[in-house]
């Protein structure tokens, strides 16, 4: 399977602090890849580098064979920021239709995306009046407009109730089966098992990269949270030696 996203030796500084210390990883095309790590580990910075919004110190990020942020990629990469970046003073429908227009698509595509995230009933409401979870789904709808080839979602399931969360993960896999590539970040380990592949980062470094099964096997435990803990401890031991 070719890679939709390739990151090589990526170093990012924010202010005087080094946020990413030479990360190399890849996201296979047509997969749902989870980007997991605690808050402050550099997930959002890595994601911003992939969508071309981050000034990088060194290293390369390639998306669909092109340098990240290239003009031609802007129509092919959907991005959902961590804080819901939709207009609070517009209705859900108006938000989605505006983003559809940016991609040259009609109102119907906007409405479809709203229905896809389960907001059809609330589509006439102002985003500012929605609950946190609904607002985040409105933001997700705007990222899913036009079924982009690559979909980069920064914590899309935070604050969603369990049923909706399962629904959304179902949607992500359906999109991947239809050919899209998804990179989904989360700081909740129980979502890790839902991914085809996992990238675990911690303090700006890649701790682990593989399928959930491979990671479980490497750490000799079924529990992914425990597996990550063991992997981190092992690496720390190596670092001390």
């Amino acid at each position: 399977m070719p890679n939709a996203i390739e990151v090589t030796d990526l170093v990012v500084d924010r202010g005087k602090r080094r946020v990413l210390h030479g990360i190399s990883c890849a996201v296979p095309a047509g997969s749902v890849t989870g980007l997991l790590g605690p808050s402050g580990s550099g997930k959002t910075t890595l994601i911003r580098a992939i969508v071309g919004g981050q000034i990088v110190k060194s290293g390369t990020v390639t998306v669909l064979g092109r340098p990240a942020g290239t003009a031609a990629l802007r129509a092919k990469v959907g991005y959902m920021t961590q804080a819901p970046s939709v207009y609070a003073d517009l209705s859900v429908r108006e938000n989605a239709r505006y983003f559809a227009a940016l991609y040259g698509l009609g109102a119907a595509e906007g409405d479809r995306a709203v229905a896809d995230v389960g907001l059809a009933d609330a589509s006439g409401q102002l985003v500012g009046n929605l609950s946190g979870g609904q607002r985040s789904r409105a933001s997700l709808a705007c990222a899913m407009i036009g079924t982009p080839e690559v979909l980069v979602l920064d914590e899309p399931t935070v604050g969603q109730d369990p049923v909706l969360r399962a629904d959304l993960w179902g949607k992500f896999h359906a999109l991947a089966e239809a050919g899209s590539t998804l990179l989904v970040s989360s700081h909740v380990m129980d979502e890790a098992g839902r991914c085809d592949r996992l990238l675990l980062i911690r303090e700006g470094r890649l701790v682990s990269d593989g399928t959930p099964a491979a990671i479980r096997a490497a750490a000799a435990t079924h529990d992914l949270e425990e597996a990550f803990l063991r992997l981190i401890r092992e690496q720390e031991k190596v670092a001390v030696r």
Partner: protein
Amino acid sequence: MSLRITMATTARILRQLRHDRRTVALLAVMPAVLLTLLYFMYEKAGPTFDRIALTMLGIFPFVIMFLVTSIAMLRERTTGTLERLLTTPLGKLDLLFGYGLAFGLAAAVQGTVATGAAYWLLDLQTRGAGGLVVLIAVVNAVLGVALGLLCSAFARTEFQAVQFLPVVVVPQILLCGLFVPRGQMASWLEAISDALPLTYAVDALIQVGRSAEATTTMWRDLVIVAGATVVALILAAATLRRRTP
């Protein structure tokens, strides 16, 4: 740049405005209300009202659109919508012209209401046509939009954005010839005044007050204001970065 995306952005900004009825009402009515206040202040002062009201018809849209735009654009920056927009096919100029068009249109409504009230209710007298006054008001509003877009890049919070009013707007009002005729200013003040775009907008309005036909000076003034607007928009485009630290 794409016309389709610019238009979609204009429509989006107008929709945001439409949901905010209080702002729409204030935008439409306040300049006319303030002119009425001026009318009673200068009731016994004869032609002074004509001079001040005419100047104010150019200053109101400039100040109001500057404030509205700097807050609107700051919100795009702080809520993350700007970061997201810049990962889509939208061009920087699509966004800037979108704002210019949307608030320019709002200013046309505002200018028409204020100018209509000034002529028909408050008996404003000018030799030139009222339509020219509305035109100058709209160009001035777009200048305010362009400067607001530019200044929002230098503000991190709403508090800071509002502080650009005394920095960018108030000196232009003080030096535009409203308080002291420009000819009576110290030469160094007049030199500063020459460099400020609002001076030309006010001069254009004075031309409409004096002459029945649109004068060459008035058109030259308008071209200068429009030119300053374009420069401010280009500088504002330079402050929009797709990649940030």
